[in-house]
């Protein structure tokens, strides 16, 4: 009696289980993607009908960047290469030599970005990237100087807030011109 019971409860052969699991695994590998969801996060200004009045600002505080339909840059009325934009913008914002023609104070500095409808998106994003990079570097320098840690998303919120208050990232995007759209 006991013997026959023992025989009946024989183990189920589970060696094919691995194959089934492999099949499922391969199915998921094929149908899914590891998407790199990265990008430059921006906050658009709320919509308002009237144009913001940038004229009332002092010209020394405005860093105007124009990008035309040929993807050329005009920064404060002078042509410039994108590679030089970051350093130039940093100097403008921090104004270490206290020059008369650069921003009075980082809190007063405002970046005015204007492009054409024919500008390449690639160029636009590169310019935006450089401007953001300039601020990131300034934030990092300030953070290193004051707290001794690099600026990152993980740092304490109070520190981040203090840094952002000292050097606020203000960018104003004007309505684009329309000369070069195909």
């Amino acid at each position: 009696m006991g013997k026959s019971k023992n025989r009946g409860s024989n183990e189920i052969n589970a060696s094919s289980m691995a194959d089934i699991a492999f099949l499922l695994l391969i199915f998921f590998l094929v149908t899914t993607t590891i998407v790199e969801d990265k990008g430059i996060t921006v906050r658009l200004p709320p919509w308002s009908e009237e144009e913001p009045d940038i004229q009332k600002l002092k010209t020394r505080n405005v860093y105007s960047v124009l990008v035309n339909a040929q993807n050329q840059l005009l920064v404060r009325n002078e042509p410039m290469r994108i590679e030089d934009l970051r350093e130039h913008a940093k100097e403008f914002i921090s104004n270490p030599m206290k020059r008369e023609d650069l921003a009075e104070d980082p809190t007063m500095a405002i970046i005015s970005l204007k492009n054409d409808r024919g500008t390449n998106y690639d160029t636009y994003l590169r310019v935006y990237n450089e401007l953001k990079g300039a601020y990131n570097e300034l934030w990092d320098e300030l953070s290193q100087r004051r707290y001794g840690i690099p600026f990152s998303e993980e740092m304490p919120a109070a520190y981040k807030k203090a840094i952002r208050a000292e050097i606020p990232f203000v960018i104003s995007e004007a309505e684009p011109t329309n000369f070069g759209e195909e």
Partner: protein
Amino acid sequence: MSKFAKKRGKATPAISTASLPDIIFMLLFFFMVVTVLRDAELKVSVVTPFATELSKLEEKSLVNYIYIGKPTERYREIYGTKPRIQLGDKFADVHDIPLFLELHKQKVPESRHGLITSSLRVDGLTTMGIVQDVKTQLRKSGQLRVNYSAKKRPDSKK
């Protein structure tokens, strides 16, 4: 002492493969968690530009995607080669964006509506005209959190 020696000499068992399925299942679950099901078929070709100052999009359920680019080969006969907008899995117009955003909002709990991000996946060769129209429409719809999708520049130091 002799007890140990005896045992060793006697046993020649086959390696048990009973745990193999568990290991594979673990792998399976790992992949199920870290990957995302391939979403809508792309009808426009999008090659996002390179950038360095990137931030990550955290929660997939709070993100809606707007694709802009030239229609792919298959759709070129019908839609031409000018850059077009794709919302979900179909070609769309700028005026379809508010409805698209609203439909996505319904799937998100109301307390988290402020955290919804629009990911703009735009081809690098697109001109700014159409992007600007989309941006204007997003601003009018009150969708202000926007992420310009980009790839990490391979030669950057950071």
